[in-house]
């Protein structure tokens, strides 16, 4: 049987587009402002930027508005949009170790240089619905005013030296510098396995939070070898510079803004080096925005992929090809598209098989 092209449904599709638009608005007292999503759905915006691989808070908020909060669709919109833009610059190397930190904790060491700074976190809140949030009119200004008054401007500002440097200085870290000069770019080059470390990190960095969390969880529960402690988790702002094309001096660069990032370094089981010394292995996670679970999951998966074994999270192809939001949701969603020929072919085959079976049974009888 050959393929038969069909057409139709154009009006139905146009009406469906209008209908979904009406469902987005029909119970709304007013259309939600993009700015409101950007400022009050902070963590969701961060997640969409991370999974879309594009740092653009306003556009991520717009995508969320357009998709009625569907994170996969919103990330898809960002990816699609970025593909229409020219990439004229590569940044200088951004070092999250030098970030302007607003949160930094370690679950490995109690006393760390700069201290444990909890920052903005829901980690220590009661998981109880706050019904007061149903009506905050007037309370917002009052809260922000009171909060500002509480600030003591004489107070020190935190500085966050890397916690893992404590271990590095004592020679307790096994991970060694590898010579991979120019990073691999998964958006420009075809990925082949085994993938270079830079490609793995790039894929993980724009991976889907839920998929990565599930895989990392599986590793910790026993379907894998990695169950770390968090050497350091930090959230803050990192400056981005690009080379200045009209520079007199070679080193000159220009500042274009800053990124909010979450960086995680995990401490994993130790290994014995060639000299017989025992050393820790570290894992690394870095995401756009504040997305701590994803950054931890990334560190677990990144470390897991550096180990040998039979578990799913040690299978590079399995992990890296299934954590991408756009690819995974796209492939699953495509099942909704017409598969009439495919299914008709299956029907034909099952009918043919039944017919042959009856003939065979008849001839035996």
């Amino acid at each position, binding site marked *: 049987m050959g393929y038969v092209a069909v057409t139709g449904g154009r009006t139905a599709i146009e009406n469906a587009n209008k209908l979904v638009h009406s469902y987005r608005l029909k119970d709304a007292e007013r259309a939600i402002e993009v700015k409101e999503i950007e400022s009050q759905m902070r963590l969701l915006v961060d997640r969409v930027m991370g999974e879309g691989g*594009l740092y*653009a808070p306003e556009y991520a908020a717009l995508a969320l508005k357009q998709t009625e909060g569907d994170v996969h669709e919103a990330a898809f919109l960002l990816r699609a949009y970025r593909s229409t833009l020219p990439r004229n610059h590569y940044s200088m190397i951004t070092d999250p170790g030098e970030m302007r930190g607003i949160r930094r904790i370690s679950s490995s060491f109690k006393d760390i240089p700069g201290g444990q700074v909890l920052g903005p976190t829901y980690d220590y809140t009661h998981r109880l619905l706050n019904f007061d949030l149903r009506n905050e009119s007037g309370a917002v200004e009052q809260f922000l005013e009171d*909060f500002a008054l509480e600030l003591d401007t004489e107070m020190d500002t935190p500085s966050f030296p890397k916690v893992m440097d404590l271990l590095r200085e004592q020679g307790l870290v096994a991970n060694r510098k590898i010579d991979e000069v120019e990073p691999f770019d998964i958006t420009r080059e075809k990925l082949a396995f085994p993938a270079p470390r830079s490609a793995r990190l790039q894929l993980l960095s724009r991976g889907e939070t839920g998929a990565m969390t599930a895989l990392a969880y599986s590793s910790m529960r026993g379907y894998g070898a990695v169950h770390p402690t968090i050497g350091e988790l930090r959230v803050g702002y990192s400056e981005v510079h690009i080379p200045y*094309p009209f520079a007199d001096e070679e080193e000159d660069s220009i500042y274009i803004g800053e990124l909010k990032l979450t960086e995680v370094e995990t401490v994993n089981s130790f290994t014995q080096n060639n000299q017989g010394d025992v050393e820790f292995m570290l894992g690394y996670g870095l995401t756009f925005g504040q997305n701590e679970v994803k950054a931890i999951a990334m560190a677990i998966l990144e470390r897991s992929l550096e180990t040998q074994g039979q578990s799913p999270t040690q299978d590079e192809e399995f992990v890296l090809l299934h954590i991408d939001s756009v690819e995974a949701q796209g492939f699953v969603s495509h099942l909704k598209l017409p598969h009439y020929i495919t299914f008709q072919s299956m029907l034909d085959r099952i009918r043919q098989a039944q017919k042959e079976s009856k003939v065979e049974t008849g001839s035996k009888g």
Partner: protein
Amino acid sequence: MKKARLTKILVEGNPALLTSLAIQVEATVSVQVEKQPAPGLVMVKAKDSISMNPFYMGEALVTECTVSIDGVFGMGVIMGEEAERAYQIAVVDAAFNCKLPMIEDWIPDLLQEEINIQNRQQEELISANRTKVHFDTMEDYNDKS
């Protein structure tokens, strides 16, 4: 003033200051737009602190613009959709590259704005520092019951 420092002040500083500087330039010399403000991408290269090597973590949306004054170029690149500011940064940048006399007068304002930026950022850090944990050592507990 180094470009990195100048552009940080222009990007993070009060937009009103940037506007006033650009207007001064436009009122004095002829500014030619070489490349209209347009959105684009910057691929962010981040340092992986384990291997100490960079990797591409994702792209940032930017608006970029190029102008010239008497054939001398100036460039403005800023994160987000910021056509006006990208143009204004390019104008100020070109003014510095042309060494227009007015830039000497700008320095005090730029330095003051740099302090304002630091103060603003410090406020956020101070509010974060209020969440620093002060551990108290608990008394020894030896339950023999």
